[in-house]
């Protein structure tokens, strides 16, 4: 896909998004104008601003047809082939991290994420990899759970149970 095509598609996507937002506000029955005795309606701000977004997107599309912006004339690839891999894999790894956090919990998910990123994507030594895989959960536990007293997602009950054991240990001996 060239930058030129991407520019048009993005313009269309933003236009659709803006119209969708306007429709959403409208269909929720929010007042977009003056409500007698009460002032501007709740829908005024988002509705008219989305309208502005739609106009701005239209302007981008018109400028695409006129070839006004440098992007609308560029025939270079939108994402170069050699970098596409790194970007897509990174984004996919993050998505997997989020999914796994809900299933096996933050800590195991983070360890797998680090293993994948440092060893397979980065191609670092096993020593470096294990430092990351072991160091990250310890650091995260100390920073977020101990210092910031946050309860990070622990995943399915079976994994959560296991973790509670560690937490119990901490509460029993350190406070």
């Amino acid at each position, binding site marked *: 896909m060239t*930058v030129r095509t*991407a*520019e048009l598609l*993005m313009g269309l996507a*933003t236009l659709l998004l803006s119209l969708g*937002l306007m429709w*959403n*506000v409208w269909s*929720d029955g929010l007042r977009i104008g*003056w409500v007698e005795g*009460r*002032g*501007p*309606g*709740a829908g*005024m*701000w*988002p509705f008219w*601003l989305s309208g502005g*977004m739609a106009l*701005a*997107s239209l*302007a*981008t599309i018109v400028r695409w047809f006129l070839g006004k912006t440098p*992007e609308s004339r560029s025939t270079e690839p*939108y*994402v*170069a082939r*050699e*970098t596409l891999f*790194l*970007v897509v894999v*990174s*984004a996919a*790894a*993050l*998505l997997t*991290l*989020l999914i796994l*956090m*809900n299933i096996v919990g933050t800590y195991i998910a*983070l360890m797998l*994420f*680090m293993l994948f*990123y*440092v060893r397979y994507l*980065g*191609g*670092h030594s096993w020593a*470096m990899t294990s430092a*990351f895989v072991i160091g*990250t959960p310890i650091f*995260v536990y100390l*920073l*977020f759970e101990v*210092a*910031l007293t*946050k*309860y*990070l997602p622990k995943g399915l009950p079976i994994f959560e149970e296991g973790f509670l054991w560690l937490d119990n240990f901490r509460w029993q001996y350190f406070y």
Partner: protein
Amino acid sequence: MQEIFIALGGGLLQAFEPLNLFMIFTGCLAGLFVGCMPGLGSVNGVAILLPVTFLVPPTAAIIFLAALYYGAMYGGAISSITLGIPGASTAVATVFDGRPMAQQGKADKALMAAAIASFIGGTVSIILFTLFAPPLAAFALKFGPQEEFALMLLAFATFIGLGGDDIPKTIFSILLGLVMAAVGFDIISGQPRMIFFDMVELQRGIGFLVLAIGIYGIGEMLWTLESTKGKVQMHSVKITWQRIKGNFRQIKEYINSTWVGSFLGFFVGTLPAAGATPASLMSYGLSKTFSKDPDSFGKGNVAGVAAPEAANNAASTGSMLPMITLGIPGSPTTAILLGGMIIWGLRPGPLLFTESPDFVWGLIGSMYVANTVTVLLNIAMIPIFIRVLAMPFTLLTPIIFALCVLGVFATTDRMFDTWVMLLLGVGGYLMRKLNYPVAPAVLAIVLGPLAERSLRQSLISAQGDVTTFVTRPISLTCVILAALLIAYPIIQKLMRKKREASPAG
């Protein structure tokens, strides 16, 4: 005047409290680190680390983040000079002369000049800040909702007039931020708005930090991975005590550009759209124009390193002036700081000076201390940071990603927000590749609720009469300035056309 000195003294004392001093040190270090890593700048550091600052009281937290902001301005020069890639967008102009100097084996001289110029820029700017802030805040106390709204209009207009990006895309970015801020319960009527697909999680709205971390954490890392392909190349630097002393004697060569950069940087920094990057570019241009030897610029003139570095430091302090006194951030970084202040339970705006003087003066005091600490740390740690720069991106990226995900989760305790963050991050990355500016959206999502409230309050109090914005003098001035700023690119275009047409006809 006397009150300012007394308050400043109190602020300095506060800055020397052990916790705050520790925050200054860690903040400067973190700032130097994010500044020197290509792809990470002050705004990324502040966005990613804001959730962690909930550990400490608000004053210590803002001191940490302000010190980080500072440190990043210094740190940016390190990679601009040794790697030839700007460590942060604010250090772009430093590359022009810093890179040739490094190639000539004068990297240490360039680094010293950058540090000293940054120090002077920072100091000049803090002094101006201290003098300007209290009267400006006192003046802003007269502001009603009309003035507040007009001021925000002005802030957004600066993006259109001075942002330099494609105008329809800039407008889209601003409006998208404002609309995203409106998701959730309406602040005045209490009605739920824009709850897409009936997702209950959206009732609490989209937090500004979700967008900021999405764009400046996830999006930025994807962008950097793409532009560096995960690898870095660098120049060696020789540093000995002897050479450092020698470099101190050469200050005269660049002191004039440093002064120019310092004053210019402060005033440009106070404008919302402008900030540190354009300030440093303008300062570079000005020093080149007024230099006795403009041809040597771009070939390793030390003044070409000093001018932008002084300006970007001065601008970072300058951008805090409207944030503290008016509640309008002067840069994306200060927009995130402003959002942080709201989370900490402070109400940004002119009342801050009277309601939380400890907070304000502690921050101002800390800026004096942070500036000194950073210059010392910077010079002392240049060899270490050069080693840090050799760190491959495949090690830094997973740490940043993990901090982004956990940071967003920690601020709201909702997994839903991390999904939104990823979505916005990838979306932001795709839009940024097409030159959609992202900074206006971040500023807009922070200012959105304030702007909507002030607009509706003004309209209610004026019974729906829109002329209320132009019948009050301060508000009228802001509206006129905003209109001029919006018209500026059009006028510029017409002038250019006229100039092109006249020689032909």
